């Protein structure tokens, strides 16, 4: 928190709060974390995520990190991935994990649910073509099972295959002989996870208190925040 970085004005926070729905305290805490990760720089890069030691054990860390650099999550249309993100982008991605507020109307809840499912969909759809193909889904399952070293890839494939078939049966039902199933589109994805109450599950408790200093970071260079 040195003199290198001028703290953002209250006005910026207001804009961000309006855009993402976070409270001021939450934004300032997240900003602190952002600066801690980026070593007080303005932009966050992929290597910065690599410092988080706890993330190493996560089987889907690549997808998680990629999600932060995915343009679709910033609601922009350009296709190429970015290499560095600003605090605003960071916050926008984080806002996907905000719990829905209590007094939300039904339509708003549906909208929130759709947004969260869209986020998940984007995570699976790595080639950004709008459908989750079998290969991509297989990749997901393999990653989930990558904890277990002794596993054959065939098992993972089998599970992914079964899952795809289930999707097809749910969304398409009976298929004619000359039909084929390209992949899971977003509508199919929505239908698939109909029974899955994602709006209550995909949430993180964003603290109003500052606990970032408790979290350890691997300090590669000597410039570490306190």
């Amino acid at each position, binding site marked *: 928190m040195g003199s290198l970085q001028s703290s953002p004005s209250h006005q910026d926070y207001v804009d961000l709060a309006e855009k993402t729905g976070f409270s001021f305290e939450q934004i300032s805490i997240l900003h602190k*974390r952002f600066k801690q990760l980026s070593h007080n720089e303005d932009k966050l890069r992929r290597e910065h*995520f690599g410092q*988080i030691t706890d*993330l190493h*054990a*996560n089987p*889907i*860390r690549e997808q*998680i990190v990629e999600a932060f650099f995915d343009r679709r999550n910033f609601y922009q249309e350009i296709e190429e991935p970015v290499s560095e993100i600003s605090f605003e982008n960071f916050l926008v991605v*984080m806002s996907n*994990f905000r*719990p829905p507020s*209590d007094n939300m109307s039904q339509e708003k809840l549906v909208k929130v649910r759709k947004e969260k499912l869209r986020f*998940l969909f984007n995570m699976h759809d790595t080639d950004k073509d709008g459908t989750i*193909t*079998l*290969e991509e889904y297989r990749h*997901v*399952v393999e990653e*989930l*099972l990558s*904890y*277990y070293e*002794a596993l*054959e890839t*065939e*098992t993972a*494939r*089998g*599970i992914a*295959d*079964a*899952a*795809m*078939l*289930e999707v*097809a*049966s*749910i969304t398409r*039902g*009976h*298929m004619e*002989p*000359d039909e*084929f*199933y*390209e*992949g899971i589109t977003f509508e199919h994805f929505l239908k698939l*996870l109909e*029974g*899955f109450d994602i709006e209550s*599950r*995909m*949430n*993180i*408790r*964003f603290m109003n208190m500052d*606990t*970032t200093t408790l*979290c350890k970071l691997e300090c590669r260079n000597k410039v570490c925040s306190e």
Partner: protein
Amino acid sequence: MAGLGSECSRRLAGCVSLLLLVFVAVIVSASPDAATGANETLRHPSGHSLDDSHDHPRNSSEHRKAFPVLAFNYEHVSKPFVISLWILLALLMKLGFHIIPRVSHIVPESCLLIFVGLLVGGVIKAMDQTPPVLDTKLFFLYLLPPIILDAGYFLPIRPFTENMGTILVFAVVGTLWNAFFIGGMMFAVCQIEAARVGHVDLLSCLLFGSIISAVDPVAVLAVFEEIHINELLHILVFGESLLNDAVTVVLYHLFEEFAHEGTVTVGDALLGVVSFFVVSVGGVMVGVIYGVLGAFTSRFTSHSRVIEPLFVFLYSYMAYLSAEVFHLSGIMSLIACGVIMRPYVEANISHKSYTTIKYFLKMWSSVSETLIFIFLGVSTVEGPHNWNWIFVIFTLILCLLSRVLGVVGLTFIINKFRIIKLTKKDQFIVAYGGLRGAIAFSLGFLLTDTEKKDMFLTAIITVIFFTVFVQGMTIRPLVELLAVKKKKESKASINEEIHTQFLDHLLTGIEDICGHYGHHHWKDKLNRFNRTYVKKWLIAGDRSSEPQLISFYNKMEMKEAMMLVESGSAAKLPSLASAASLQNAQQRAPPKQRAIPSISKTREQEIRKILRANLQKTRQRLRSYSRHDLFSDPFEDSMSEIRFRKQRVQMERRMSHYLTVPANRQETPSARKVWFEPEHKVYTYDESESPRDGAALETLPDTVSLLSESPQRPGQSSRLRKRGDAEQSANAPDSQEEPQKLSRCFSDPGPKEEEEEGEG
């Protein structure tokens, strides 16, 4: 038609009541016989040896009796006889209720059972006999544990741990509030002159409050099971009823001790607080120890499968008894034992043992519950009662009031910490579901001070009756009226499981990025610890490193196979296919190409490997036969066969391009049981049926790959090579026509010859 039906049911009802009367008469006549028999044997101790127990007193005359061909000797078996008779009565009642469908739909079973108990008690009393009362020892040592074990073993862990904070607050703080509020207010009430209960001092009132404040798990289970409410509310009320046992135990002992002393000092209160922690944590520790022991033992039972279920039951019961020895919370110990033991035991034991455990637990808990309610009714008739209008009425009002206030107040505080807030509707159901039951009665029965005891017991019984009858009967229409969310009948879906796991990791990752160690972080750490260390110790063989997704998947396959056997026809198949992929292998360039179903050969080999391993295991078991071995159950052996056959059928289905799976899976008419139900429902299967099409399918070619995903291996059958060639040539030019051709070839799932014809 309707008239006939009602006449039938009326006749049956008449039969049932007749049987009931017969039973009661037998029981009643049995008891005095036992008494007189005992007296007689006492009178003639010398002339008898143990195996010579005749009814007639042996007189000293020289008259030589003829050898008695038929003798009546009842007191020898009186005790087990009476017990069995009671249990039989209880079960017949249970049967009887479902014959009269309309009644059982409106009135919950618990009410009906209490009513029956009242009837029986009344009949016995009318015959001037003393009916058996719900003895405290009987209740706490024999009737309660099966119910709690059943609840704990099948406790849904995920919602329980997610709502643990809320449940604990309700259980501890809520019960404390209830106890003190009721006790205090009752003391104030007792000061009223008109009540003539001025002799009841504060401590006795607090004791009374502590007895009646606890929500009862038996009653909650009995009522909530029938209304199928959503998971969150169910686990909140149920979890609270289980965890408040520690508070109840401590408060009860505390006040009972000091009711004699007369005063409570601050020091004693502090000791009470300490004792609470000791009781609860100690109980849990005892349960954990026994749970780990049980899991460890189950690791070595692969050679004596028959006794596997016994280990589960005995270790759990020992946990309960050991906790009771030290006055720790037996219920919490039992729950902890079941929860800890279950994942490891289930990975180790055979499928049959798993079914046995499920069946037995359900059976025992059902019998226990029935007996408890009947005895409650009988004990009510027995008395002794001391009916004091003001005391009882005020108790009732205060119970309801304190419950509502407690729930509302606590929810207000809890909602600040919850992500998913509890709505007003939820609060109402939680408050309304606070039923009292037999535990309160038994604790009241344990009281020693007879004067107040009768009055307390009367009040307790009134409250129990009110909650069970009024609240139990009205909760179902209220749930409908308020449109409370019901339990989702969710099918076990592999996609949901994948996404559940995915979400877990995702949220853990986001928490790490955010930099705070939250809920998911610790859960993840626990899981990792579990996987790396604990599982290796407690799970036998190579299943210790099996990922959860795989076990889930295998379980689904198992259920599918069972269902297939049951339905007996391969015509309608579930959609779960393990050996087909709908899309083209990506080697074939742009992914938008036309997809042709193909079966991965390597996948099929792997399935075969698994099945072969299963078959080997069953064969090993069969090799040595002794009386203590199970007969080779044709079902379990053939299950692998069935599974294999099913795979083949599915492969062959895929070949014909059809995804003939019904969108909803539950339409197989001949299947009599429901599948994909939550875990703790019990499956049954009809062993007489077997897949009829099995024979026809065995002739299918071993491997079929319409698209060679893997390079051709040497030593394949000639037919395969032919097919492979055919498709190789067809691959290049027109992919459009190919599937049509192939589909025409394979669309007829007939015997071998036809396929060859089609191809040729």
